[in-house]
């Protein structure tokens, strides 16, 4: 038995390292869990991208669940995500609000004219403060906010059809059951 002990130790170390490799591959190492899940969405009042005389605030969205998608014309991954939003945005059954984050409004409008506009409303967060309040660190990010104004789900990075099917739709479905 004592002869086997070093071998056993070796096997243990190999198992530990293999687990490390497996964990690294199956998880996004840059992912940081948001402390805002199940907390009230932060207050914001931001001008609309297409009509800066009007604004939208957290209060305006109370009473119905909605989706917030943080994007920017400077953001390369947002371009990858864009066709997915174009395809699924209207099918999810909730208002999709775009937050144009740290972006020049004119460039954003050109970007949207070129690729299409999947959003119901777009708010412009030019200096990025509202984004910081939402804990945004890597656009695109998508938030699901319920009728009470609570953040229920967050996805960092681009939405894919797989993530919409396996995460976003179930999260929306859960909200539906709660409604009286």
């Amino acid at each position, binding site marked *: 038995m004592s002869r086997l002990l070093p071998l056993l130790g070796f096997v243990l170390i190999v198992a530990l390292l293999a687990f490390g490799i497996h964990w690294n591959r199956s998880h996004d190492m840059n992912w940081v*869990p948001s*402390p805002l899940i199940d907390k009230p969405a932060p207050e914001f009042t931001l001008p609309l991208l297409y009509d800066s005389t009007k604004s939208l605030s957290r209060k305006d969205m109370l009473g119905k669940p909605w989706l917030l998608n943080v994007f920017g014309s400077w953001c390369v991954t947002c371009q990858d995500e864009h066709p997915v939003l174009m395809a699924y945005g209207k099918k999810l059954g909730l208002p999709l609000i775009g937050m144009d984050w740290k972006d020049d409004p004119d460039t954003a409008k050109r970007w949207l004219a070129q690729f299409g506009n999947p959003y119901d409303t777009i708010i412009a967060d030019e200096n990025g403060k509202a984004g*910081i309040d939402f804990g945004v*660190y*890597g656009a695109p990010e998508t938030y699901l906010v319920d009728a009470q104004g609570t953040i229920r789900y967050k996805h960092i990075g681009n939405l894919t059809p797989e993530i919409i099917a396996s995460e976003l739709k179930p999260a929306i479905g859960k909200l539906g059951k709660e409604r009286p």
Partner: protein
Amino acid sequence: MKRVVMIVAILLAGLHPAFAIDPLPFKDRVEEVRFQNLTRQLRCLVCQNQDLADSDADLAKDLRRQVFEMMQSGKTDDQIKQYLVSRYNDFVLYDPPLHAGTWLLWFGPFVLLAFGAGVLWKILRRRSRAPLGPVDSEEDW
């Protein structure tokens, strides 16, 4: 000679601490030192192996400005840290606080150490009990 001057110049350049540059209007040196100290304890979320002081990421610039503005409005270091933690998780702190979620992180190494010490103690005790007979030549590892 030229080469020597060059090498000295390069070495001297290395002495200056590298701060990401965006000039902020500090009112005195004390405030600047406090700012540098604080931003060194905070992680940049975009390039996660850099602190907020060193990162050139756009978001880091915004967060530095935010930290600066909060300092101006008289917030304490703890309040500023709390502001960031409530948005970005404990992960922004290089020195994670002790709470239920971080017990394993803080005490895991000691548990492993205790386990190792236990194994060692057991082996040593077994050896000291073993009869001091002639050494088995096969048992040479």
